[in-house]
């Protein structure tokens, strides 16, 4: 059994300040077999506001999956990751780090902070789509996500 049979809409939070990347992600996820809605916030402070339903995000859903860039304005992705993974109410939400960095230090740091996985953004557009499809394929159809 996979999530294929699950009619529930999967809510995905994308934390990404690069508008081209968030647009590409949205387009790649739009054709997904698994119904999903993508919410985009552009900095680390907004990401935590979304998760804690603060400010303009009082009606925000609890995301089933978080796609997190590391280099973000206002609050760095590493700090956001650390906060999510040390918060009892949030830590079970899987966080996929997706960043342009390939630095060994960032990979180690992310896994040390309990990122669920670390992915480097490819520069090539077609490859970018392949990566998003691969995330979709694995995290939305093979993996069992925590429902709350």
């Amino acid at each position, binding site marked *: 059994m*996979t999530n294929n049979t699950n009619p529930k809409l999967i809510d995905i939070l994308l934390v990404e300040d690069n508008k081209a990347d968030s647009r590409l992600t949205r387009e790649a996820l739009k054709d997904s077999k698994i119904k999903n809605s993508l919410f985009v916030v552009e900095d680390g402070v907004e990401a935590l506001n979304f998760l804690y339903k603060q400010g303009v995000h009082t009606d925000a859903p609890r995301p089933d999956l978080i796609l997190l860039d590391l280099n973000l304005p206002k609050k760095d992705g590493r700090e956001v990751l650390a906060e999510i993974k040390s918060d009892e109410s949030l830590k079970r939400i899987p966080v996929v780090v997706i960043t342009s960095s390939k630095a060994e230090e960032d990979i*180690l740091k992310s896994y040390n902070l*309990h990122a669920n996985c670390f*992915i480097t953004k490819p520069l090539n557009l077609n490859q970018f789509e392949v990566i998003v499809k691969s995330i979709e394929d*694995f995290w939305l159809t093979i993996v*069992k996500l*925590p*429902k709350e």
Partner: protein
Amino acid sequence: MKKNENKKILLIEDNLGDARLIIELFNEFLPGCSIVHKIRAEDSVEYLLNTDSLPNLIILDLKLNGMNGFECLKELKYNRDTLIIPIVVLSSSAMEEDIYKAYDFYANCYIRKSISLNEFQRIINSIIDFWFNTALLPVK
């Protein structure tokens, strides 16, 4: 170096039938990789704390004799030397509570075993494809 020779997987699984199938599928889809199989979580923890070549990925069953999968997760994910290794929980349980608990103990992902052989193949293939071709792993 042969293809995949540097890829090392630790499988913690006490069902010998499942273990045999998983090992066969890894050998098929990731030829040349090395798989260390442990039946008991206690032995796995001891192995990891003493080896000088950590695995790139751990596949962990939950229902184990002695130390169970949750306790094993806790041992490995709260230890500075082992916490970076991604752990894929592969369990027959579909209970929400087990899924929550695994993620709360920092399992990197939770996958339910399938009783269908085709589906089991698809799952192992996806695990290999995602973790070895898409994600970047901390242990080289």
